[in-house]
C-alpha cells in the first residue's frame, strides 16, 4: 500500500489516502509516484501535482522500521508540504521556532528543553508532581512547570 497526501494549492495537507499497490506500479511493476498521482487525479477529482506520496513509517526524518526515511514525516491533515526540501512539516508551534531540515522538526531558538533532574523524574514517576518544561514565547525561555497543579 502507498500513502498519498492531498494538498491545497498553498501546500497545506487536506487529506491522506491509501492507494493499493496495483494502482501505483508502472508497467515494469515498480512503485511510481506519478502512476499513483494519475490514479488519484482520475478518481478523486484533484490535480495529480497536488497528490504527494508520503511514508507511513517516516517520522522526524527517520524510518521506524530501519528503512530509508522519505520526505521527513508522515503527512497529516494541516501539515505543510515544503517542495524545496521535500519535507512534510507540522504546523510551526511558535513564531520564533525554526526548521531543522536534518530532523524535519521545529526547534526553539535556544535549543531543546533542559533535561529534568533525577529528583524531578522521581517525583514524576511517583505521580506526586508532573514536571515538564513549557516554552515561554514572550520570554524566549523554557519554563519548568508542575502540570499537576493545573489538575482539578
Amino acid at each position: 500500500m502507498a500513502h498519498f497526501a492531498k494538498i491545497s494549492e498553498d501546500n497545506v495537507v487536506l487529506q491522506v489516502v491509501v492507494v493499493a499497490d496495483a494502482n501505483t506500479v508502472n508497467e515494469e511493476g515498480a512503485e511510481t509516484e506519478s502512476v499513483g498521482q494519475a490514479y488519484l487525479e482520475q478518481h478523486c477529482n484533484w490535480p495529480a501535482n497536488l497528490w504527494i506520496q508520503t511514508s507511513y513509517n517516516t517520522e522526524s526524518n527517520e524510518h521506524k522500521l530501519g528503512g530509508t526515511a522519505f520526505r521527513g514525516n508522515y503527512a497529516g491533515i494541516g501539515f505543510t508540504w515544503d517542495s524545496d526540501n521535500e519535507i512534510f512539516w507540522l504546523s510551526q508551534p511558535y513564531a520564533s521556532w525554526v526548521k531543522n531540515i536534518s530532523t524535519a522538526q521545529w526547534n526553539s531558538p535556544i535549543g531543546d528543553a533542559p533535561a529534568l533532574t533525577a529528583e524531578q523524574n522521581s517525583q514524576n514517576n511517583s505521580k506526586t508532581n508532573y514536571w515538564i518544561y513549557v516554552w515561554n514565547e514572550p520570554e524566549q525561555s523554557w519554563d519548568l512547570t508542575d502540570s499537576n497543579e493545573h489538575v482539578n
Partner: protein
Amino acid sequence: MYNGGAMQKKVLSEISLYQGDVSMPKGFEIDRSILAIDTLKHSFKNLIDPSVGFPFSKSWDMLNTYFRDHIKVKHHLTLVNKDTWGNLYKPGEVTTPLLQIDKVDLRNSPDYVLLYGVSSQECSVRIHYNDNRRKGRTLDMKLKDNQFIMFPSTCMYYLTNKQQDILNFVQTITYDFI
C-alpha cells in the same frame, strides 16, 4: 504587559458563520450546470416520489469534498453529511422562513446548514439569530455564484431572489459536527 490577572474567558457556545468561495484548482472547477440540471430533474421526480434523494454527481462530490476538507484544516470542524437537496427560486421569490432542525427531534437534526450558490444572481440570505437576551437579530448576506455560507442549523433563514429575469439555483447540504 497587562495579563488580565485571573480574569479568564471560556466560550460555552457560539454562533459562527462561515463564508467564502469554492476556489478549486484550475481545470478542476465545479461544473455548476450539472447541479442546476440535477435540481430541476430532482424537483420533478420528487413530485411523483418524495422519497427520491438528490442524485449523486461528480460536481456534488467535488463541492462536498472541497468544503469538508478545507473547513477541517482551516477551522478544525469535522463534518459528516446529513442531507442534501437543490432548490430553484423564481424571479422575485421570497421563501418562507426555513429551519433545518426538527424541534421535537433534535437528536436527528443537523448541526450546520451550508448554502452554495449554483446559479445565484442577486440572491440574498437573511439569517435570524439570538444574541443572548437580544432575540431575533438578523444578518443579511449576498449569495453569489460559487460562494457558500454555512451557519448553525438552529438559525432560521430565508432566501430572496431579488432580480426579475432568471431562476436562482441554490444547493443546500446539512452536516453533523463530530
